[in-house]
C-alpha cells in the first residue's frame, strides 16, 4: 500500500507535498539533469525581480555548523527572461511553478504580479516579504505587519483571481502570528514559513567577515526548530490557512515534522545543495514514514501534533 500524497495549496492541487524552496532549486534545468522535475509537487523559482540582477560579490556562501549562510542577492535574469525562457521550459516539462517574487516597493510587486499572471502557467505566487523596502530605508517588509499587508493587498488585487497568493514570512520577528494574520486579512490565500534568518560568520584566520556582503541568511538544519515553532504557532492561530513549511528539511522524517506542526506542503532548500536527489528522496522517505505509521493520506497528517494529548489529566 502506498499513501495518497496529494495536497492542496488553496484550490491548487499538487500531486505531492514536496517542493523546492525559492532560490534552492535553480531554474529547474539544473535539477532536471538528475531527475524529472515534474515529479516535484512544484518547483519554487528563485525570487523573480523586474530587472536582471547580478547579485552580490563573492564569497557568497559560508558553511556553518549544520547550516549555510548565504548572501547571493537574488541573482537572476529578471521577469522578461523568466517569462520567455524559464517558465515555458518548466511548463514544457509538465512541472508546476510556484513563482517567488521580490520587489523593493509595492509598485514593483504589483508590476511583477501583473506580468506573471497575464498568461496562465503560474500555479502559485509566493511573495518574498523579506526583501528590503526602498520606501522604508531598507527595512524588510516582513518586519512589519502593516507593510506586509500593504504588499499583499496590492499583489492580491493585481494578480489574476485564480492564482493563489502566498506570503513568505521571516522568522526573526517578535510575533510571527501577528504578521501572518495581517497577511491573511489582506487577502493571502496561504503562507510560506520560514525565510532564512540573518546571521554572520567571521573567517578567524583572515580576521574578516566570511561573506563579502558581511551578513547573510542562515538556512539548513540549524534553523529547523525555528521553522517548526513558526509553523506550529501560525497553524494553531489560523488552522484553515494552508502553510508551506520550510527550514532545514533534510529527510522525509524532517518533512513529516513540519507537516505534523501544520504544514500542508514542505519546501526543501539547503538539502538540494547537499544532495541533488534530495527532493525525490525526501518524497520517498516521507511516503514510507506515513505508510509505516498507518497513515493512508498525507493530508491526514497535517497538524496532527496539535491534537489533544490522550493522557491529559481530567
Amino acid at each position, binding site marked *: 500500500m502506498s499513501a495518497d500524497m496529494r495536497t492542496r495549496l488553496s484550490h491548487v492541487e499538487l500531486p505531492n507535498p514536496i517542493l523546492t524552496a525559492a*532560490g*534552492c*532549486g*535553480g531554474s529547474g534545468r*539544473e*535539477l532536471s539533469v*538528475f531527475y524529472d522535475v515534474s515529479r516535484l509537487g512544484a518547483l519554487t523559482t528563485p*525570487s523573480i525581480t*523586474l*530587472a*536582471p*540582477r*547580478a*547579485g*552580490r*560579490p*563573492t*564569497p*557568497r*556562501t559560508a*558553511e556553518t*555548523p*549544520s*547550516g*549555510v549562510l*548565504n*548572501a*547571493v*542577492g*537574488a*541573482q*537572476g*535574469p*529578471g521577469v522578461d527572461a523568466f517569462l520567455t525562457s524559464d517558465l515555458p521550459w518548466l511548463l514544457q516539462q509538465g512541472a508546476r511553478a510556484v513563482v517567488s517574487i*521580490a520587489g*523593493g516597493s509595492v509598485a514593483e510587486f504589483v508590476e511583477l504580479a501583473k506580468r506573471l499572471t497575464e498568461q496562465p502557467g503560474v500555479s502559485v505566487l509566493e511573495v*518574498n516579504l*523579506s*526583501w*528590503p523596502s*526602498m520606501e522604508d*530605508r*531598507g*527595512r*524588510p517588509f516582513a518586519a512589519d505587519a502593516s507593510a506586509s499587508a500593504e504588499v499583499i493587498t496590492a499583489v492580491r488585487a493585481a494578480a489574476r483571481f485564480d492564482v493563489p497568493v502566498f506570503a513568505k514570512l521571516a522568522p526573526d520577528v517578535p510575533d510571527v502570528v501577528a504578521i501572518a494574520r495581517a497577511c491573511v486579512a489582506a487577502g493571502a490565500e496561504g503562507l510560506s514559513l520560514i*525565510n*532564512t534568518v*540573518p546571521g554572520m560568520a567571521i573567517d578567524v584566520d583572515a580576521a574578516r567577515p566570511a561573506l*563579502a*556582503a558581511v*551578513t547573510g*541568511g542562515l538556512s*539548513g538544519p540549524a534553523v529547523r526548530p525555528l521553522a517548526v515553532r513558526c509553523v506550529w504557532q501560525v497553524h494553531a492561530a489560523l488552522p484553515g490557512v494552508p502553510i508551506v513549511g520550510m527550514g532545514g528539511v*533534510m529527510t522525509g522524517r524532517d518533512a513529516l515534522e513540519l507537516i505534523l506542526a501544520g504544514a500542508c506542503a514542505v519546501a526543501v532548500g*539547503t538539502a*538540494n*545543495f*547537499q*544532495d*541533488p536527489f534530495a527532493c525525490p528522496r525526501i518524497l520517498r522517505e516521507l511516503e514510507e514514514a506515513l505508510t509505516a505509521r498507518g497513515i493512508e493520506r498525507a493530508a491526514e497528517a497535517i497538524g496532527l501534533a496539535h491534537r489533544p494529548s490522550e493522557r491529559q489529566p481530567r
Partner: protein
Amino acid sequence: MTGTVLTIRQVDAYHAMTVVAPAIAERFRPGQFVAISVGGTGSPMLMRRGLPIHDVKPDYGGTVEFVFPADLPGAGWLAERRVRDSLDLVGPLGRPFPVPRDPVHCVLVGSGYGSAGLFMLADRLQQRGSRVDFVLGATSADRVFGALRARRMGQTATLATEDGSLGVRGRVTDVLPQVIEDARGDVVYACGPMAMLRTVAAVATEFAIPSQVAVREIVGCGTGVCMSCVLPVIGEDGITRMVRSCVEGPVFRGERLRFDDVGTIPFDALGAPGARGPVEGFRER
C-alpha cells in the same frame, strides 16, 4: 550517487582516493570534476567539495581517483575512509577542456593539487597526436602533485617551487614563458588557484595563444543551484555575466574571465547594481 572506496593513499601533502563509480567513469571527460559529500549521514557539513579528477580507469566497471589537500574542511573525515566504505559523490560535473581536433603543441600548467586535473587531459591530447609539455609547481616539493607522472608523460616537465626544494626556485608562471617558447606552444591549459590562472592567462595573451583555465576550488553544491561560485565572465556577445564556475565552468577561456574583477560585481556586468538595484547596506533574503 554512491561509490565504494577502493584505495586511499597519502601522496606527499595530499590524499588520493580511488572510488568505484562506473556511472562517473563512463561519462568523464578531462576537465570535469566530482562533488564529494563529507561527514556521512546527518553531517553538519552541508556543502559539497568539488575536486579535480586525477584518473579514470576501467577496473571494477569504472573507477575515479580524486586528490584533496589536508586543509580542505572535512579532509580528516575523508582521509579516515577505508576500503569498501561507501562515499556519496556526484559527477562528472562541469564543462570539459576543449581538445583540438588536429595535433598541436600544448603546454599544461598545474599548481598544487590542481595538477591532478591535467593528466587525463594530457592522455587525451597525446592520443590525438598533440605534443604535451608540463609545468608543475607549488610552494614546496611535497605540494607538487604528479611530478613523476609528468616526467614520464610529457615531452618535457618543468618543475618550480617557491622555496626551491624542487626544480626551479619560483612560480610556475615564472618559467612558463620559456617553456612556451621552447615547446613552440600553440595553446596553454591550466588548473590551479585563481592568482596562478590569472598570470597564466596573461602570459598566453602575451604570446598571442589561447589559454583554457580550470578553476580548482568549486565551493557549494557543484550542480548550479546554490549560486555561490560565480565569476565575472565575458560572453560571446561581449556582455559580462556572473556565471557559475560549476556548470558554465570550471574551464574558461583565459581571456574571457575577468580576473581583476573576481570578488566584485563589475559595474558593467548584466544586472549590476544601478538605478533599480537594492538599497546599499541592506540584505535581501
